[in-house]
């Protein structure tokens, strides 16, 4: 099922399908490895609810909700917390 990275629950894995949006934000995402085909795991939200921390290709990244909303994913289920 396709959804957005911002909807992913903590502990869940997903595969990136597409990165929409443009400009500096998308460029940065590409540079950081947020590209189609990559598996991401939602790790946690910041204590104030935003930004998010994700794990991808073995490293930890943070991104804001508005940025995560531009990433289309396919949920893979997860290991839970």
């Amino acid at each position: 099922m396709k959804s957005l990275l911002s909807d992913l629950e903590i502990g869940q894995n997903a595969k990136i399908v597409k990165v929409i949006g443009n400009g500096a934000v998308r460029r940065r995402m590409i540079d950081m490895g947020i590209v189609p085909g990559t598996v991401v795991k939602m790790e946690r939200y910041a204590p104030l609810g935003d930004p998010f921390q994700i794990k991808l290709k073995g490293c930890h990244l943070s991104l804001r909700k508005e940025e995560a909303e531009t990433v289309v994913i396919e949920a893979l289920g997860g290991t839970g917390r």
Partner: protein
Amino acid sequence: MSSKKITIALAGNPNSGKTTLFNILTGARQHVGNYPGVTVERKEGRIKHDGYDIKIIDLPGTYGLTAYSPDELVARNVLLEEELDLVVDVVDASNLERNLYLTMQLKELEIPMVLAVNMADYAEANGITINYDLLAQLIGIPVVRVVATKGEGLDDLLDLITHKEKENIPEKTVRYKIEIEEAIARIEEMLNSDLNLEIFDAVKKDSSRLEKYPSRWLAIKLLEEDKEVTEKAQSISKMAGLLDQVKKDRESIELDAGDDLENLIAEGRYAYIRGACQEAVKIVELNKASKTERIDKVLLNRITGLPIFFFVMWLLFQLTFALGNPIVEYLEDLVALAGVAASNALSPGLLNSLISDGIIGGVGGVVVFLPVILLLFLGIAILEATGYMSRAAFLMDKIMHKVGLHGKSFVPMLIGFGCTIPAIMATRTLENPKDRLVTMLVTPLMSCGAKLPVYTLLIAAFFPNHMAGNILFSIYIIGILLALIMAKVFRTWLVPGESEPFVMELPVYRMPKLKSVAIQMWERAWLYLRKAGTIILAFAIVVWALFTFPMVDSQGMNYASATEQMENSYAGRLGKTIEPVIAPIGFEWKTGVALIAGFAAKEIVVSTMATLYSMGDADSVLEGGTAEAKSFAQLTREQSGFNQLTAFVLMLFILIYVPCMATIAVIKNETNSWRWPIFTIGYTVSLAWVVCFVVYQGGMFLGIGV
């Protein structure tokens, strides 16, 4: 024997240990400057190896080579414009896939390269095994295993740098989808053919020098719609036909693939990297959370994350100011002693006053800040080296993003409560120049430590004890609110535009290396002394002159008292000139003079008022006990004619108006122009006046505090 000279550049992702490697290789043989026109640091160092004299340029750490950020642009321009013999690409062994993305972009520039796979020990301990020889064969770049912090692999790396011809590495290039490759070939051909000479002629005039860039790289950049390359091409009229071709190719490829070309090219690079990594890298998933993950469970936890963050900030504050201020006070005493000694040694007169008050005071004003700057940068260097700085940004971003800033802006603004000078310098941790500028502009509104004694005295003089705490607190809160409002205003109208993406790496926690921390600390301090120091000294002499001249009245007679001399000095006259402007906010000319003196340093406001109102020596009051303070408060009440409202408005004005001259000098230094320090003076004075006008007139109208 004369040694052969070669120039190399160090490139790599942030957190790849690039700077550590640079520091280990070059040691103290470093030179730090700025790239022209931008505030990106340029670091160069030298090392001798095997009869070679190697000049190393440490490029800013970047994830890519696009024209989006100044760091990336600077890195790219060095790679394209300077005659480099070799590029050493430093990659993090634990994050090979992501790090190699930059490598692929570097490779397209067709400069000889060496890949230094750094922090290999950490990767090995975490189940990652890399076949270096195979990797080299697969990506067509010599590869060397390095652990910079332990000095492992450095000789191998230097051997590769100096004897690259010995390597037996095949030529390899990223190959994209067939349609993209066809388009690249078409554009390359057009670039290389008849156009080339004409382009060469055209660009000689506008110095954009497209002709010497690799044609494959140019073709890819044109297809990617790279901002800088496209703009340069558009400025050359002969390229119009080529640009049409680029547009046609791009549109047809995008239509076929249903995705845009920039994405497709990026995917091509990643696909190539994935293929190489699958063969050359073996990863054994360790079935336990890494050390970093376990630490983050506590430090970024929903409940414990923020309390720990505030505790860390408190520690940073204590380290800087609780440890630094006694040293500052000691230095201040030394400066005062030097002033007295100089004054006694020289015969009385103008030269005596210039040296003992103007120059020694000015130099002293520079030197006394050094301990807090050193300690703050020690703290920040540790926070950055351990990896906690990114976590701080992660925790605070929600609040800072609301006013258009980045999570990282929080730390400099907090430091501003101690001293604005190191706070301005701490904005160096911000990558985005707009965020950095706005943070710099609003940080002076965070009430600094030097303003506190002024508030204390005014509160003691005009407010009963039970109100004192609330009044002081309200001043600080007003400062914070104004800083947030002005940040929003500046980010909306002064430097509008997309805010810095927050897509940010949360690096692995590491123990900081003493040598790197010490080098960083020293660089900052030296930059402050050398650049800001001279400006502060000049300002100090100007302020001294304003208060010293004229020394005698029009008949050539000495003034009867210090009060009378100050009243007739240029500063005094200036105070009288501006009286009509400050009258609507409840100040008379004497207050104006004190505020002019406050440009030198906020502490001086009190002593100037003391002289003007003939209240005696305010220094003894500032350092003395409560008895003196009480008498000073009483004198202020009796002599100044202030009421509670004027006292409060004066505190507000001191909170908001021009930061001290040392801050102005540092802003000049950090922005590389006079534009922003002058803007800072202008906006803070206007804002102070407007806020004070509203409060004073409002208070008068409502009859509060009069």
